[in-house]
């Protein structure tokens, strides 16, 4: 259906068959339409079912827990709790104050932006279920293992002192549970407006970059710089991804175009994760609650983990394909 829309606009209306511009435009129209439709439907549906967890509820569920079960729970809840990076400070303090270990809190902070229902549905719609399962599984593993690795560095030393002194109130929010159809619709529609309103820019830019790669960048050029799947190329992919920042949904069309040009799966995964989970603005926000050494270790762990993921999947590619 979206393919047909792309055909209609790029080829039938504008007559751009067999040109790079036509290919790029086709990709752009198809992906913008497809992603916006998927995005809107999945957010609306989840809003309607009130399936979105809030950080306050997660905190209450996790209170005072540690151990492997709590870690699994943090990662799982992170994956189903959407949160805006502007909330990462109160979230961090709230978790620490509830006695949730730092490693578990960081696990949550890694998992939450990387894996969420919205990204999963869009990813599956754009590049298929197989790739989506691999992405989700590795993303959650990186978050889970990260909790243990980071804890080993005794990071508590580098949490700003004032964080330990904050006491959180128990003014539990009385959310009126009006479950009538009208109320559900209003709530769901408001969610759509807010989330789409926040991430549409990333989608447009992401699809634009994807369309450019798809239409103009020759496959052999891509193959030359990123195609061999060597360890070095994965490291470069991660280093290129770190300064970039995008919502998970925005990077999907770029990944799609790269895969289409024959860039190995591992390299694409490493790049995607670096863009989504490791970003300068996010680090600067977290700097308000933790000191530089902690951020350095956090970033170093993630970069290393992404390189390992990339190398692993490049090595496995003959087995998977």
């Amino acid at each position: 259906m979206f393919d047909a829309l792309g055909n209609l606009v790029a080829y039938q209306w504008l007559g751009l068959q067999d040109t790079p511009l036509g290919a790029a435009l086709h990709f752009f129209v198809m992906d913008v339409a497809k992603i916006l439709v998927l995005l809107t439907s999945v957010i609306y549906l989840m809003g309607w079912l009130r399936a979105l967890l809030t950080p306050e509820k997660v905190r209450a569920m996790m209170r005072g827990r540690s151990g492997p079960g709590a870690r699994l729970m943090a990662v799982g809840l992170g994956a189903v709790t959407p949160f805006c990076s502007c909330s990462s400070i109160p979230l961090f303090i709230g978790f620490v104050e509830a006695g949730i270990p730092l490693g578990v809190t960081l696990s949550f902070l890694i998992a939450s932006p990387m894996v969420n229902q919205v990204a999963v549905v869009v990813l599956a719609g754009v590049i298929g279920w197989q790739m989506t399962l691999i992405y989700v599984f590795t993303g959650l593993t990186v978050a889970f293992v990260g909790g243990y690795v980071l804890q080993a560095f005794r990071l508590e030393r580098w949490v700003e002192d004032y964080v330990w002194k904050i006491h959180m109130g128990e003014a539990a929010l009385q959310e009126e549970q009006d479950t009538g159809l009208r109320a559900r619709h209003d709530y769901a529609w408001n969610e759509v407006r807010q989330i789409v309103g926040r991430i549409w820019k990333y989608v447009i830019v992401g699809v634009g970059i994807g369309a450019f790669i798809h239409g103009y960048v020759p496959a052999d050029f891509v193959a030359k710089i990123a195609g061999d799947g060597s360890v070095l190329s994965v490291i470069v992919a991660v280093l290129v991804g770190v300064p970039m920042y995008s919502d998970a949904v925005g990077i999907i069309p770029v990944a799609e175009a790269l895969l289409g040009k024959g860039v190995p799966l591992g390299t694409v995964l490493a790049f995607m994760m670096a863009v989504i989970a490791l970003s300068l603005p996010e680090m600067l926000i977290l700097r308000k609650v933790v000191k530089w050494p902690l951020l350095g270790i956090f970033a170093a762990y993630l970069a290393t983990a992404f390189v390992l993921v990339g190398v692993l999947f490049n090595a496995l590619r003959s087995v998977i394909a």
Partner: protein
Amino acid sequence: MKNIKVLGSGCANCKTTLKLIEEIAQARGVAVDLEKVDDMAAILGYGVMSTPGVVIDGKVVHAGGVPDRKKVESWL
């Protein structure tokens, strides 16, 4: 007069929420004492982790996003 506090650390959504409440209060001619709280300890003191949050006369009525227009109208 109602005392309304908007909890938030200066993100775009917090500003939108503040403006929305101001606008609706004005449109309905309701006098409100509108306040912006950006101190993290104070925000967490209300038990709110996802900003923006809204507190009316000391009670948390909303958290985690811009409230919709109807919800704001029901508060005033």
